[in-house]
């Protein structure tokens, strides 16, 4: 079964590139694209993607806020954050992200992150959403702002 992915980014060109990368991967399918946090929530409910590639910095509802809302869905999708600069790692971590990708995203890294997101069943994800949390495996912290 193909993994269904929703791409969320406010920048048209960033959206375009990530969509291309997703479409080129085997066993992965682009479920849709959204240009902001609100639209992402709407499409997540309607399209039921298994994974969301979520930009952190967006006008209006940003990626972190959207992730918190997504986690409260009955069947939350796995969230992989995408960001240009690693200053949100800690917050992303708190938002129970399944992954964290740096822009420009490399195709191999995307493939790895999607493979990891595919592995856990819904159960641990639901548990995460309830706040019990899974084991922390990796962490990147950047406290300093530019």
């Amino acid at each position, binding site marked *: 079964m193909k993994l269904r992915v929703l791409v969320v980014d406010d*920048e048209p*060109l960033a959206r*375009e*590139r990530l969509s291309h990368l997703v479409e080129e991967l085997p066993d992965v399918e682009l479920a849709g694209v959204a240009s*902001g946090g609100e639209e992402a929530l709407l499409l997540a409910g309607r399209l039921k993607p298994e994974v969301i590639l979520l930009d952190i910095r967006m*006008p209006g509802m940003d990626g972190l806020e959207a992730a918190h809302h997504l986690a409260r869905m009955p069947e939350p999708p796995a969230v992989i954050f995408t960001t240009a*600069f690693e200053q949100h790692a800690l917050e992303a971590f708190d938002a129970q992200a399944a992954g964290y990708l740096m*822009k*420009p995203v490399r195709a191999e890294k995307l493939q790895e992150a999607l493979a990891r997101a595919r592995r856990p069943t819904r159960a641990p994800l639901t548990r995460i959403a309830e706040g019990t949390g899974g084991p922390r495996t990796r962490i990147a912290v950047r406290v300093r*702002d530019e």
Partner: protein
Amino acid sequence: MSTRRERPDFYLPDFCRAQSVLAVVLIAELVAMLLTLARHDFFPEQFWPDLAQTSMFLLWAALGTAAALCMLRGQLSQLDVAKGSIVALVLMLVVTALVTEGSWQFTEMMNRRLGMPPASFDLEHLKELGRNLAVCAIAGGLALRYFYVTHQWRSNVEAEAQARVRALQARIRPHFLFNSMNTIASLTRSNPRGAEQAIADLSDLFRASLREHRERIPLAHEIEIARAYERVERLRLGDRLKVDWQVDALPMDAQVPALILQPLLENAVYHGIEPLKPGGTIRVTGRQDGKHAVITIGNPVEPKLVARRPGHRIGLDNVRQRLELMFPGEATVEVIEAPEHFLVTLRFPAGVPA
């Protein structure tokens, strides 16, 4: 000879310059005053004639030394501090001895003409020579020490200022760099020409940010850099970003520190346009006000934004400090912060320094 560079620790001022000559005259007069005061009560009859005589003598000695130092500067500047100081001091002593000898001979000649007996020669002559040389050695030593300390102090101040400028060198936000790279990665598929343009614009920007500190560029060039930045951001933000340039009235050949305008435009995009969902228009207006150039950058602000993005003031303070370093006391950066608007006004001398 003239192509040889001075050693950085060479501390003597250039005695060929009028300023230094004036300083020498002043020092000589002060020493003359000191010596005369030491010999007399305050203002007895003998005070003024004696002061005149001492001044005359010291001015000859001091100006003669200054002339010699002026001529020998090229050679002196190649020596290290100790050797240079000794040579300078010896030079002073030689000039003083010559002037002493000259004045002695002159007095003798006058005495002969007036039919007065010659002064008892050897002992008086030697005593005067010795006394003058001692005074010269002490006063000259103090003067050299003074020049040395002044030089050290000045180079410290200069080094500090340079370090500050280097620390302040405009930095482009990493966020902007990586977002632009992402944009280019995307363009290479759909719009290779656009990618090319973006790479050229980014190169201009980074070339400007890597520029040697302290370098000044014409305002026209700085505006070009800001426009290159705008083009890169427009690729990314699309129609959400509009910049209204009203800068034709600016003195385009005015010299400014590189990246004085671009960081403010970047601030306006980062703090103003990006958080606004529909985007907005940044207005850049420029005019000349007498001898000053005035540039205003205004951007809309998302009123609901509770917490401003961090780093709000850093870019602004950086621009302010670099303008202050380049135009001490003559440049201002004013900020007007309204709930839905943010306005920065730069004001700096528009002169074209030689």
